[in-house]
C-alpha cells in the first residue's frame, strides 16, 4: 500500500508517473523511477526470490543495494537488485528461483546490436 496521508511527509503531490509493469506475467502499476522493490511491496508482493541452497523465501531487506535478498529476474537478467533498480514502464519482473534464469537471446540480442552500430 502506498502512503497517502502522512503528518510530516508529503508524498501524494510528489509522486512520479504511474507506469504499468508485469510481475510473473501479471499486470501491475507502480511509480516510474522509484525502486522496483517499492512498487512490488506496495502491490503486496513480499517474496522476491527463493534462495539457492535451502529454497527459502526472501524479500526486501537492506534497501540500499548491498545484500542479495531482493534479487529478481528483470527482463531476462537475474540477480537484479530490485531495491535500487528504478522501475521502468513495461518491465517484466519475475521471482528468482535459485540462480534464476538468463535469457541468452535477449542479452545477446542487445550485444549483437551494439556490434552493428
Amino acid at each position, binding site marked *: 500500500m502506498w502512503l497517502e496521508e502522512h503528518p510530516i511527509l508529503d508524498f501524494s503531490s510528489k509522486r512520479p508517473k504511474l507506469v504499468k509493469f508485469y510481475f510473473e506475467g501479471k499486470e501491475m502499476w507502480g511509480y516510474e523511477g522509484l525502486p522496483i522493490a517499492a512498487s512490488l511491496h506496495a502491490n503486496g508482493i513480499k517474496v522476491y526470490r527463493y534462495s539457492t541452497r535451502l529454497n527459502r523465501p526472501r524479500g526486501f531487506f537492506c534497501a540500499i543495494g548491498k545484500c542479495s535478498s531482493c534479487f529478481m529476474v528483470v527482463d531476462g*537478467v537475474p*540477480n537484479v537488485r530490485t531495491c535500487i533498480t528504478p522501475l521502468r514502464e513495461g518491465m517484466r519482473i519475475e521471482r528468482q528461483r535459485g540462480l534464476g*534464469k*538468463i535469457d*541468452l537471446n535477449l*542479452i545477446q540480442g542487445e550485444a549483437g546490436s551494439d556490434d552493428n552500430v
Partner: protein
Amino acid sequence: MVSGELSKGLPKTADVVIVGSGVQGASIAYNLAKMGVRDVLVLDAGDLLTGSTGRCAAGIRAQWGGELNCKLAKASLDIFETLSDELGMDIGLHQGGYLIVAYLDSEFQQLKRNVQLQNSLGINSVILSHDEVKERFPALDISNAVGFTYHHRDGHADPFLTTLAYIEGAKRLGVNFYFRTKVTGIEARGDRVEGVQTSKGYISTKVVVNAAGPWARDIAQMVGLSIPVEPEAHEIVVTEPVPRILDPMVISFSGNFYMQQRPNGSFIMGMGPEPYAHPKDQYSLTWKFPYIMAQKVTKLLPALREVRLLRHWAGYYAVTPDRHPILGESRYVKGFYMSVGFSGHGFMLAPITGKLIAEMIIGKKPSIDVSSLRPERFEEGKLVFEPMVV
C-alpha cells in the same frame, strides 16, 4: 569452549612432518595415512587455505602437450572422479570439459598434434569444428577463432572442498593438522633430516615434506638447498553466481585467458602475465586487471556483460624454469622430500602427486615414473619440455 587444535600441544615427534596444508600437503598426508603411515603432522603458517590452493581457479585438464603431464593429469582425473566417494565429502567436481581455442594457425597445428599424443595415451580429446562448437556452446562468440580441441572429462573441482575433504579424510586416519604454526628451521645431521623447529615448539622427525607452494624456496633453504622456485603473482576475478550458460572451461594460449563457470554458477577468469605488469612478488592488485578481463571475456561470451564482477584477488604460482613441478627426495638431504613448483597446475595434479610422494616416502616404486622431475634436474641441465603452458 572449543577444544580446538590450540588446546592440544604440538607433539614432540612424528614419522613425517609436512610443511604446507594446501592441496599438495593435504593429499600427501591423506595418501600416507591410507598407506599406513599415520603419525603424520601437517603444519601451516597460515589459516586454512590461505595460500595458493585457496586462491586458484581449480581447473582440471588432461589436454597437455608433453607425455608426462598427460599421464599425470589423466591419473589425477581418474582419482578426481571417485574422490567424493572415497573421502565421503562432495568436492564440487564439474566435468564440463575444457575447450581450447586457437586464434593462430600455428597454434592450431600444435593443438592437433597434442590431440594425437593425448589419444595415444588414452585421453579421448577431440578436434571440434566451428559448427560443433556453436551447437554445443551457443553462448560463445567464436567468430575469430581458428580451431578448437575439447576433452569432455576435463573440468573443475572446488579447491576449498577438495582440500578440506583431504584434510578431514586424513584426520579420520589419525593425521594432525596445525594451522598458524610457522616452521622456523629444519635440523639436519650429516645428510639426514632430524627435526623441525616451529613457532610452537620442536618436532623430532626423520622425514620432512616441503609442500609450501610459493614459499617452497624458503623452506628448502632451511636445509641448505637452493631450488629454483619463484613465486609469481597472478590476478583473478570471479563473478556473482548465475544460471549455467557455459559448460566447459574455455582457455586460449594466444588469446591469453581462461574462463569457466563453476558449479555454484559464478564465473572465474584470469590470464597469464601481460605488459600491464603485476608486481611479481606481491598479492597487490592492479586496477587495470578487471578492465582487461572484462573486455576479453565479454568478446568471447557477450552474455557476461550483464554478470557482476564480485571479487578480485591475487595468488602465487610457484614457478620453476621448465614449468614442471619438483617431485622427490633430495639427493643431498635424506628424508627431505619436495612436492613443489607446480607452476600453476598444482591443484589438478595433487591427487596423483600426493600419492606418488607418499609411495616414495614408504619406499615403494612410484606408480608413475617421475624421476625426470627430480630436484637435481636443473643443475644437471635436464629440463622437461611442455608446449602447453603460458
